[in-house]
């Protein structure tokens, strides 16, 4: 076990554990934020695992999660807009902390990879991950103002 896998284990255990707690309890506004955070945390963890196992092709999983994770949150934001309209989530603190964690992980993995086509792919994943999750948070707190008609 190397440092990368250890970091991934800690991130998964604490981060996804907290996200599971958030998604299982409390009002709906907390649950949707926890769902968004679970994808935002799992994607950097997959990058750490790919680096830890020294298998660059595993990065594809992080790429797909960085693309489809926010899309999944958009699905909830759109189809639960009625329920969220009365009590919209306000969780910018958590969102930026998790986005910062994603940025740190992408930076560290990039530094370990060195300048190469793989690094460009990692940077694309980082941009999709952080942009997607910040946007998904925005969509949850009032992204669909005329809820539930279409």
């Amino acid at each position, binding site marked *: *076990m190397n440092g990368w*896998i250890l970091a*991934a*284990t800690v991130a*998964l*255990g604490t981060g*996804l*554990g907290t*996200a*599971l707690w958030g*998604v*299982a309890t409390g009002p*709906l506004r907390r*649950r*949707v934020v*926890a*769902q968004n955070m*679970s*994808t935002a945390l*799992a994607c950097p*963890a*997959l990058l750490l*695992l790919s680096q830890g*196992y020294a*298998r660059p*092709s*595993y990065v*594809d*999983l992080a790429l*797909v*999660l960085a693309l*489809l*994770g926010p*899309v*999944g949150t958009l*699905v*909830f934001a759109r*189809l*639960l807009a009625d*329920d969220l309209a009365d009590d919209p989530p306000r969780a910018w603190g958590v969102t930026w902390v998790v986005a910062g964690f994603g940025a740190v992980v992408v930076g560290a993995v990039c530094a370990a990879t060195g300048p190469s086509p793989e690094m460009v792919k990692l940077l694309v994943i980082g941009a999709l991950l952080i942009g997607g999750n910040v946007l998904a948070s925005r969509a949850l707190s009032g992204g669909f103002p005329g809820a539930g008609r279409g």
Partner: protein
Amino acid sequence: MADAVIVVVLLLVGATATTAVAVRDPERQALVLSVLGVVLAVLFTVLQAPDVGLSQLAVGSALTPLLLLLTVRKVRRRAQDKGRQE
């Protein structure tokens, strides 16, 4: 020691799957199910099965919640229409 990550993720899968069964409201269940999809994909990755993990991510992160929530919306709307007629 090298298997610690497998144990952690396996425990997460067990806890998430139990939660998915225990939650009763279908919309909230869909939220837990989407987290379960992500955790399962990580489990497949740490067990060195990235192909399966990728399938799980592709299906579980957007497609399954969309199908579930559309079904819930249809059922609710039908119940509302029935209520209006009576």
